[in-house]
């Protein structure tokens, strides 16, 4: 009885494989094109890479949302202490990136590449770009980008410049608002952040170096910071008061209930602004998609499929 059962199982499988092969012949399709290029272990490296990227960074919002860009730095394995979080990041990202390079996928809509390292830095940077969202972010704020970076700037040439060696560290240095827009925080929040940070710098530059007196350390708590900035504005006959007013409703997101899906994108935003509310909602949607995706057995296929688009 058992033998008959086994034979029928073998015949059943053969039939399925026959059907599969005929389907492949008829349509000329390759079911898992990347399988051919990678070993089983490399496929596992790649799967753990994407799972880790989505769990620990906002990379998923680039791929399954409207976040234009992710910069994910990780240290070299040799420069980190085994057992630490950064060592784990280094191992999983290094192995995954190696497998990803081997696949050599060219996508129309997305870009996942290691940023060129000058050799001086003890870390590598993964850059993940949603080209459409990137172009939209630049296009929607073109005047601001051109005011800061020059009149010839557009989405494409900015992307090319940023991807050149040391493009990120030089081109956007000091332009916090532009960085914020490209990282997906929207213009309003990014501009408030830049203005607020300029005020903070003014306060500390005025107080920390006063030779021959010793260095005044920056406050360690938000309350101390607020107190110091307020007293500075008071002492300057109200200079900076408008920025203080602007910062009044600018804070981190506080979830309304315990079981709420919280996007892992910590940034200060205008709590009463409609633009910010929409932004937050879109990130919550992306987070839901990602939670669902992480539970799928064909997680890697789906991600690679997305990256091929």
């Amino acid at each position: 009885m058992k033998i008959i059962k086994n034979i029928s199982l073998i015949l059943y499988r053969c039939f399925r494989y026959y059907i599969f092969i005929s389907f492949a012949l008829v349509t000329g399709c390759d079911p898992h094109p990347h399988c051919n290029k990678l070993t089983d272990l490399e496929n596992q490296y790649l799967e753990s890479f994407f799972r880790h990227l989505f769990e620990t960074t906002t990379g998923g919002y680039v791929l399954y949302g409207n976040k234009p860009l992710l910069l994910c730095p990780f240290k070299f394995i040799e420069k980190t202490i085994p057992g630490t979080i950064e060592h784990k990041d280094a191992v999983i990202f290094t192995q995954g990136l190696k497998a990803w390079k081997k696949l050599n996928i060219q996508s129309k809509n997305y870009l996942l590449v290691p940023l060129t390292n000058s050799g001086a830095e003890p870390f590598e940077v993964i850059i993940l770009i949603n080209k459409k969202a990137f172009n939209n972010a630049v296009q929607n704020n073109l005047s601001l980008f051109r005011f800061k970076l020059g009149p010839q700037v557009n989405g494409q040439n900015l992307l090319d410049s940023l991807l050149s060696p040391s493009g990120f560290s030089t081109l956007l240095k000091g332009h916090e608002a532009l960085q914020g827009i490209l990282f997906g925080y929207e213009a309003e929040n990014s501009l408030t952040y830049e203005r607020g940070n300029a005020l903070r710098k003014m306060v500390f530059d005025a107080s920390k170096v006063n030779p021959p007196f010793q260095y005044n350390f920056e406050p360690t708590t938000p309350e101390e910071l607020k107190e110091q900035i307020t007293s500075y504005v008071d002492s300057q006959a109200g200079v900076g008061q408008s920025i203080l007013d602007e910062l009044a409703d600018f804070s981190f997101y506080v979830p309304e209930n315990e079981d709420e899906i919280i996007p892992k994108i910590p940034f200060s935003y205008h709590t009463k602004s409609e633009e910010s509310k929409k932004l937050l909602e879109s990130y919550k949607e992306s987070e839901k998609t990602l939670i669902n995706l992480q539970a799928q057995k064909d997680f890697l296929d789906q991600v690679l499929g997305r990256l091929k688009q």
Partner: protein
Amino acid sequence: MIKKILILASVVGCIFLCKDPAFARPNQGSLNSTTIMQHLTQEEQKRLPLIIALSLKDLCPERAHFASFIQGIKIADSEKASNYQESPEIQAYMQYAMQITLDPKITKNLALSAEYLQKKQGAEGSIPLINDKICYKILKTGIKKGIEDGSINNVKINFTIKGTDNNFLAGNYTLSGPLSCTLSELIPGMAHGMLGMYLSEVREIYVHPEFAYGVFSNFGNGRALTIQVELIECTTTDTIFQPCLISTDLAKFLPNAPKETDITSLQKDFITFCGKASWSFYKQHLPQLHLDEILHHLQSDSVLSPENRETLYKLLWLIYTQRE
């Protein structure tokens, strides 16, 4: 017609096929049920002690610190602890060291400051207080004992501060006459250099940026400072005072650091910690490793070959993904 039937049959077949475990991609779940060693070849398993030892050597490339690193490994082996947490001091040191590494300008400033201070310390009449960090020279001797060690001193001083290229950075001579303050308010390196000064004495104090405004400061480009100070008046109180000689840059990350915290000892603690944490990590996941064998390989001059590095990365990946 036949082609259509064939396509339909193929589609149905593919649906079945997707359910077949033979075609399922091996995933992290299947990895959990196996041991790490099963994923390594016999040859790789044999080379494991050498690979681990050489990877540990990678972590501590400077021979000067190797003894502290080995000490950490030995401590971890004897304590058999599975997990070591960084103390706040070590975390602060790690942040500080990371920031220094990230900016080549800072590394250059540190080198220039070290060179400048070595030169000043080696000059005739120089009195070192902290080796290669703070020293001074008496330019004009005083008349009467002024600042006493260990007490709060209210002082009246004239001063100038210059950078490493002798450019003037700050001073009070042309501005508002002598400056009144307490020693505890001054740059730590300057306060330390003024201890024991006589009235009317003029000293030139050479201070590492670590004990002034820090290597990240724009003041004096974050390099060593030359502070010339003349003591005009001095009154002493009963309150005990010693300048806090914790590095300014380190204090940013560790605001409540004890006074005796210094970078050199923190660096040593950090390296010992690296040894402890690394060995406890490997020992926890690969209990078959023997310390003596690892120590033997650590003494060798070999370095990790690309092939061994690949095995190491595979091993580490297996350890991390198996834990999940």
